[in-house]
């Protein structure tokens, strides 16, 4: 069953800003990563799904309901985490959660209390005085506390420390098991790598690709930095191994590997390796790797 349906969605702000003819579906039980650099149109898409914006052209549906006309009905089954965290003036964390629960007509607080514990959220302090990460956690609790069928999360892990990012990823996987449909936006591939089934990549308001996470990983080139014991063995490895060598500097070799790394590991077995690092690929790299050298994309990233 299709839960989120976006068809020809267009909002033109002029000057190539906005979103243009977006079309994609998200199926029930799917975790969809919505990937793109800042300003690509991720949040604009989400604002349409939330019914904050009316499209110039095309339409968006959630659970078969029109996002512009029936947003209040959609919200009964939807949890939303805004990209920019802004709350009510002067409320404490708990006051805010109580207020939101009341606005939703929610009386069962079991899930909420579980989430507060999971994220170690301090709900007593005034929101105004909370750190960015704490506010983000409050937003996450608020989005999940009514056990919604559909979740729309705009850059959910920004501001979270690594431990909380892991907790969050675990929770997403948990929700996926329960059959929830989740759309989460991000500007970093690593952030959604663990949790998403499919990834939509948006650039300058246009959807450039929708890929299955499995296929994406297959096609993905990763950059590795290998530190050998001596420069001699480094150059020996570089000359004889047949891998795509990018750079040799003293005893360090930089190379890129496509997809499966077992061959690479087997070869390394013959050498003394002091250190092995991966270079975190930027979104730009990912575009380059998947879609070749599009000069426009490279210069605008």
């Amino acid at each position: 069953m299709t839960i989120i349906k976006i068809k020809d969605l267009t909002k033109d702000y002029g000057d190539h800003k906005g979103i243009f003819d977006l079309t994609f579906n998200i199926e029930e039980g799917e975790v969809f990563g919505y990937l793109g650099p800042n300003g690509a149109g991720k949040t604009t898409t989400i604002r349409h799904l939330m019914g904050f914006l009316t499209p110039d052209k095309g339409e968006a549906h959630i659970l078969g309901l029109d996002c512009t006309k029936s947003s209040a009905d959609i919200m009964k089954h939807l949890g939303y985490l805004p990209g920019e965290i802004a709350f009510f003036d002067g409320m404490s964390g708990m006051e805010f959660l109580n207020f939101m629960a009341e606005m939703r007509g929610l009386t069962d607080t079991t899930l909420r209390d579980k989430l507060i514990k999971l994220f170690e959220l301090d709900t007593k302090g005034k929101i105004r005085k909370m750190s960015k990460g704490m506010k983000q956690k409050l937003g996450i609790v608020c989005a999940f506390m009514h056990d919604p069928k559909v979740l729309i999360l705009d850059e959910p892990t920004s501001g979270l420390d690594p431990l909380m990012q892991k907790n969050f990823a675990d929770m997403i996987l948990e929700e996926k098991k329960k059959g929830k449909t989740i759309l989460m936006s991000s500007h970093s591939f690593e952030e959604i790598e663990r949790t998403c089934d499919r990834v939509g990549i948006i650039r300058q308001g246009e959807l450039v690709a929708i890929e299955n996470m499995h296929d994406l990983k297959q096609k993905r080139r990763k950059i590795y930095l290998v530190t050998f014991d001596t420069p001699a063995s480094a150059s020996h490895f570089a000359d004889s191994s047949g891998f795509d060598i990018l750079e040799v500097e003293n005893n360090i070799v930089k190379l890129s590997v496509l997809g499966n790394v077992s061959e690479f590991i087997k070869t390394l077995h013959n050498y003394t390796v002091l250190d092995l690092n991966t270079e975190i690929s930027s979104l730009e790299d990912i575009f380059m790797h998947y879609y070749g050298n599009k000069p426009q994309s490279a210069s605008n990233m």
Partner: protein
Amino acid sequence: MLSKSLLKATIKQNFMVFIIIVAVLMVYLPIIITMYDPSAQDSLNKILETMPQGLIAAMGFKEIGGSLIDFIGSYFYGFLILLLPMIYSIIACNRCIASHVDKGSMAYLLSTPNNRGKIARTQALFIIISMTIMIGIGTIVGIVLSNVSFPGELDVKTFLLLNLGALLLYFAVTGIGFFASCLFNDTKSSLMVGAGLPVIFLVIQMISDVGEKTRFLKNFTMFTLFDSDKIISGESYIPQFIALIVIAMVMYGLGINIFKKRDLPL
């Protein structure tokens, strides 16, 4: 139709400023009422004559008839009632919609199963009710104090009419503020119109009171529709009241409808 939880939160949010404005009103009103002294009226008028006439007139103080209602009508309903509740109106109107949109907290309100119409109606109702309570407190305190200090002196019917006029004026003033709050994305623009327009009206009103030469300016301020002199003297006031009601209804109606349809940058 309305959201009780939002209404509660809005009441809490505006409670302090409401109390402060009411408190200031409650300081002035008793002072003015107890200042009334029929025998000293002539001498008070004489003192007024010694002051710059333009200034006195701009503040709404004129040479006045001798009754208590004339006195209160001139000193309280001539100027103070135009100024103090307006401060509340400006703050509350801006907070009710525009500031939520500006700060982004509107995103949370709209992510609950409450549509925009319901949220806007709730906020509008809050402003209307709180304004009514504010003017109502003034009315009751005015009547009680007058009867304690000068039993039987106050023309209660006219005093009620005077307050009804002030209330209708504030329905229109908050209507403008609410409309601006619904229309704009940021607090700055909302205040520019929602506060700017009433303040300009008030200034024009003050200038037009200064003298004959500036009298024509009366045609350019909405505050002319609330004329305490005319209400007290029993001259026409019903058309003005109707005009204020129409302005209020149009402004609130337009505000809610625009907010329902427009794009929100949340």
